[in-house]
């Protein structure tokens, strides 16, 4: 999946598998359960207990390293770009994760003395300081290191001289700089040697603390934190500071991982039951997990400390280590699943530019202050000297400007010159004292007074000299903490080495992109197969549907014909009816004509009034002239037309009734 956002990138996950050891080899012919496809970055895991028919599990990662891989390969390909980013002011984190005994320590530390077997950490140290020494001379660097351990949710400072009895440190948050460890020791390192020393001190402290505890190493997380601050003049002429932080994290053995919940969201652990009642809080807080309530149990310390590395402002590499032996199947699977999940964590790394808490700025300001003090002192001494000398007023102006023009680099020389000046002044005062003593013309007490004055002046001078020396020492100490780039830039071999490294970097880059392309190809392949599959099934579907369609079509035609027939029939009958109606209307008109012309209106009204419709017999009937006892009048044509029954009239009525009947029929048909 392509990342949604350009500024976000996912955690890089690489997997390394150690070779089978002798004991494991002797255990049987089962061999390794882990297969690796280096070109595709895939790990194929075989379940030693499952039947052969069961499909093997495949996981894809950013890179995989098999038993034959070299330390250098892993570093160049997967770690070097991260360290470069740190040097450019990004936050970077390397997690080492895996079951105890899978070569986590070998990967991270390796054998320090053997250049071929040096692990990620020594290589990173080397990388950082080499980079500094080769960078341009207008860059100033400050490198600091801290080393801490999280054991049973307690943060312990491994660089604290009395580590053994030290109290656990607290995590705190500051409005300006976020989460920090209160009172954590931080050592300024000026060289590889110094930073290695820091690491050794911490490692020793860790080992000492561990002797009285079981399974210590598999339960404790170790964090080595390096801060690289770099100041460089920007285009605006001001110095800009970039701060890169590198976290080297040795996570507790993966067998404990589920409980520490490093991955941001708590790993859903199997249905394991907590035995001790002291964990009741965890059970309850799992129930109370809701947005509208407050759950007092916080994220683990590790999660809080590294929140930037998992879903925050950092570039993160996770190195998962595996054991290939069949008996490690479960743990290996857990490790792979965990690593697989970590791939989905998205980070938004940004360069940390001019943060408020940069120590380098503080140092620079302190140095500037000290320098100003020194300048001031020098100027004062000069003035005094001139007072004493009583001469050289013109030279003074020159010197002042000279002093201002003095370059930072000349500062040390300036200090030395100053010391010389002191010595000279002292000598001169001594000489003057001598002169006074030898002056025989002067009065004794006058002499005494002058001598005392000279003595006092010398005392003041000495005191001042001491102060200046102290200041200079402080100044030098401060400045020595800052590393300046460009020390080795002329070095030709270095130049070549740099090129070589560049090439190596390029190669690593290419391997990586090749693997990415391979992985993409694989995905495409799958897609094509999927498409083809759906295509064949579509064909079948079309055939089935066509058959059905034909059948239905025939049925439809039948029904259509039927409808047509019915329609035709209706049309015919309607036409007939129309004809009849026309005839009837004509006749009716004719009858009306007769009525109008031949029957007097009052007679007509009489007749009309007597007409009533009998719904039961469906007939028009005449009411009897004399009200009868029966409520229903019977039509008696003879009574109506006693003289001469009009045939025509009778017929008309009859037809009208039939017509009405037919109409009703039509309605019913409709």
């Amino acid at each position, binding site marked *: 999946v392509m990342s949604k956002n350009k*500024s976000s990138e996912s955690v890089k996950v690489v997997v390394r598998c150690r070779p089978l050891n002798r004991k494991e080899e002797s255990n049987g012919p089962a061999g390794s359960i882990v297969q690796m496809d280096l070109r595709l970055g895939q790990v194929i895991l075989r379940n030693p207990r499952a039947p052969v028919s069961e499909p093997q599990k495949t996981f894809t990662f950013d890179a995989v390293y098999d038993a034959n891989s070299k330390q250098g390969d892993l570093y160049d390909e997967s770690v070097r770009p991260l360290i470069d980013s740190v040097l450019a002011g990004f936050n970077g984190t390397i997690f080492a994760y895996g079951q105890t005994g899978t070569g986590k320590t070998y990967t991270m530390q390796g054998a320090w003395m053997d250049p071929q077997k040096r692990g990620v950490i020594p290589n990173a140290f080397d990388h950082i300081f080499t980079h500094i020494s080769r960078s341009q001379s207008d860059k100033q660097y400050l490198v600091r290191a801290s080393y801490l351990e999280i054991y049973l949710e307690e943060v312990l400072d491994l660089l604290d001289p009395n580590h053994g009895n030290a*109290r656990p440190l607290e995590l705190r948050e500051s*409005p*300006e700089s*976020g989460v920090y460890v209160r009172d954590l020791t931080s050592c300024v390192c000026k060289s590889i040697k110094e930073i290695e020393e820091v690491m050794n001190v911490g490692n020793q402290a860790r080992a000492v603390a561990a002797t009285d505890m079981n399974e210590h190493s598999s339960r404790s997380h170790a964090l080595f934190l390096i801060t690289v601050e770099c100041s460089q003049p920007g285009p605006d002429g001001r110095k800009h500071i970039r701060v890169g932080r590198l976290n080297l994290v040795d996570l507790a053995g993966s067998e404990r991982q589920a409980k520490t919940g490093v991955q941001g969201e708590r790993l859903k652990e199997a249905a394991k*039951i*907590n035995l001790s*009642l002291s964990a009741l809080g965890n059970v309850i807080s799992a129930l*109370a997990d809701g947005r509208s309530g*407050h759950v007092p149990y916080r994220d683990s310390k590790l999660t809080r400390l590294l929140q930037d590395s998992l879903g925050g402002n950092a570039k993160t590499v996770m190195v998962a280590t595996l054991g290939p032996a069949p008996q490690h199947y479960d743990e290996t699977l857990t490790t792979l699943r965990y690593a697989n999940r970590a791939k989905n964590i998205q980070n938004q790394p940004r360069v940390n530019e001019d943060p408020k808490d940069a120590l380098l700025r503080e140092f620079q300001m302190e140095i500037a202050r000290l320098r100003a003090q020194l300048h001031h002192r020098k100027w004062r001494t000069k003035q005094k000297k001139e007072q004493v000398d009583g001469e050289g007023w013109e030279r003074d102006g020159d010197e002042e400007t000279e002093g201002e023009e003095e370059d930072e680099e000349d500062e040390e020389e300036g200090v030395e010159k100053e010391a010389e000046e002191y010595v000279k002044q002292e000598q001169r005062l001594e000489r003057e004292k001598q002169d006074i003593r030898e002056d025989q013309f002067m009065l004794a007490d006058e002499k005494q007074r002058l001598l005392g004055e000279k003595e006092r002046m010398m005392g003041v001078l000495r005191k001042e000299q001491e102060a200046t020396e102290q200041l200079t020492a402080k100044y030098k100490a401060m400045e020595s903490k800052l590393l300046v780039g460009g020390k080795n830039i002329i070095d030709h071999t270095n130049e070549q080495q740099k090129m070589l490294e560049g090439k190596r970097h390029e190669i690593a880059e290419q391997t990586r992109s090749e693997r990415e392309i391979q992985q993409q190809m694989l995905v495409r392949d799958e897609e094509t197969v999927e498409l083809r599959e759906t295509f064949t099934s579509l064909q079948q579907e079309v055939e089935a549907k066509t058959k059905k369609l034909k059948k239905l079509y025939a049925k439809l035609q039948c029904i259509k014909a039927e409808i047509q027939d019915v329609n035709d029939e209706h049309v015919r009958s309607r036409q007939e009816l129309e004809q009849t109606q026309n005839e009837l209307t004509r006749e009716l008109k004719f009858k009306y004509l007769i009525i109008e012309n031949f029957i007097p209106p009052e007679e007509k009204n009489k007749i009309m009034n007597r007409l009533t419709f009998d719904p039961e017999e469906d007939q028009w009937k005449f009411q009897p002239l004399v009200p009868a006892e029966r409520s229903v009048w019977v039509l008696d044509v003879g009574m109506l037309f006693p003289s001469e029954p009009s045939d025509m009239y009778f017929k008309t009525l009859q037809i009208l009734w039939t017509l009405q009947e037919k109409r009703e029929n039509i309605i019913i048909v409709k």
Partner: protein
Amino acid sequence: MASASSDEWRAVCDKFTNAQNLTVVESRNDPENDPFRSKYKARELLREIYCTLKSFEAGEGEEESGAESSEQRPTEPPVDGQREDGYGQGFSGDSPAGLRAAKLGAVEYYLGVNHVDTEELSAGQEHLMNCMKLLERCSVSSENVSLFIHVRNQLGILSAGWDETETAQGFLETAESIYQRYLKEDGSPPTDMTEYFTTEENMLTHQERTKRFELAYTHTMYYLAQVYKNLGETERAATYCHSTLQRQLQLNQFSPMEWALNAATLSQYYITKGLYMEGRHCLSAATVISDLAGEVPSEAAAQESETESERREQLRQKRAEIARCWIKYCLNVLQDSKKLLEDSIGELDTDRQEELKMARRREEEEEEKGRKSALLFGSEDTFDSIASLEEKVHCLLPLDFTEARAVFLVGQNYVTQAKEYFQMDGYVTDHIEILQDHSALFRALAFYEEDLERRCKMHKRRVDMLEPICSDLNAQYYLMIRRQMMFELAEIYNEMMDLKLTLANRQSDTESLDNHTINKFNHLCSASAKYFQMFLDSLCSPEGKIPEHLEEEVLRPALVARFRVARLYSRLISPSPSAQLENLDKSLEHYKYVVQYCEAHPEAAAAVETELELSTEMVGLLPLKMNRLKAKMVVNN
């Protein structure tokens, strides 16, 4: 064991004591490269005991071929949950045969636990199942009931570890029913398993027996709570957690602070389910029990000794956490009742209010009934203090301003307490969360306030507490919090603006507003727009570019903010037509953004349906309005 000489028996007892000592004490000091050394030693001793017991049995040569039959190991393991275990079958627990079976079973039990501890789970299970089989032949009695429960607890744990949650549930539920039936039918303090292998003079007191037995059952409940949690039956899990806590208190097996914190956390489960009476009970108990931990050491005392300093830190922190749970209680009560009482435009629905007040009496009666049936915390000396604390705040939803204010004040009091520990410097996130809750309390209270002037002042209080902090925070480390605060501030200003307008319209019936009101209105309007804009700016890339694609979690807020800004610009009152035109232009731009974004990302439309509809309409209407304005300007000129 009549046939065994007392010397022999004494040797067995010694071995057992030794094994226990190795398991519990010695094992802590085992070296890293041999972590189970002591446990392996203990295992050897237990095996020896097993053999000795067997030989006694053979020596007695009694009735049964029991020895062989247990050697044969029937293939079908007994599984719990299918029938009532241990009652009304086999020989009784206090018969010699029953006792023999119990002793042998106990050794199997200890062997089982030993194997589990040394990560040999299958072997451990086998031993535990052997124990089950031995017990199967006995009926439950005071001699063996403890073992009946212990072995099921262990098997429950084991099954759960293998993801066989239902099997675990079976074992543990049977243990539960055995316990309950035993208490009903017998109830005398049962023999502890360790007593099987102690000499007469070292038997436990009745008190100690009861304590151990009850503790075993407390664990059963605790494990059941976890099993139910894993099965997703949160309600039952909560009940069992509740019972576990209650038993801890009853049996006096708890550390006050830890217990209090757990009870407070449990309250959060209840309040999210709307069960305020239970929630309040947990919180009151938490407060009362946490007081048992004693006074917080003074700062001076803390400076002198490290243990005091640590104690001070712990007590202050945990009490502050409990206070935060109380805040959430008050807040949820207020918000829930608000939801119940508000009409379609978010104002108080007085008809509904009356209706609910009528129904109140019935509720009160129910509360009384509920209290009686509920599982209550407390020992004799704490019971009353818990009850009196409960009386200080209602657990029924408030229905008018007076009632709401009472809840609010309690909440505000806890806000002060919590802030004392969670200060800005050092606890940024916590501190701000508390402030946000405080603001939310005010917001909920404002809903009940009928006087708009005072309502406006409440909102002003919210602004005063949030505004300074929002600007002080580092934008990088506290991005999320700042976004929340900006959005909230924008909404508060918006609310205040609306209130001011309603007030002004009420006071003067005339259409025109006076200058002062207009200025005030415009100020609030632009403040709201400013914060919405700040929120939108926080979404931009470091180079200040507006993101092309909004992440899902900010999609709706971002589009809503756009929409609201658009609306705010169109509402600004300005005397000059040209300024007004400018504002309308800005407004149009934001409306257009919403419409265009949803066109480009059709999936976004669903998230902002109403806003999109209105925006589309406005994009059509605003240009007309602007044209009219322009025309007017031309005429006037």
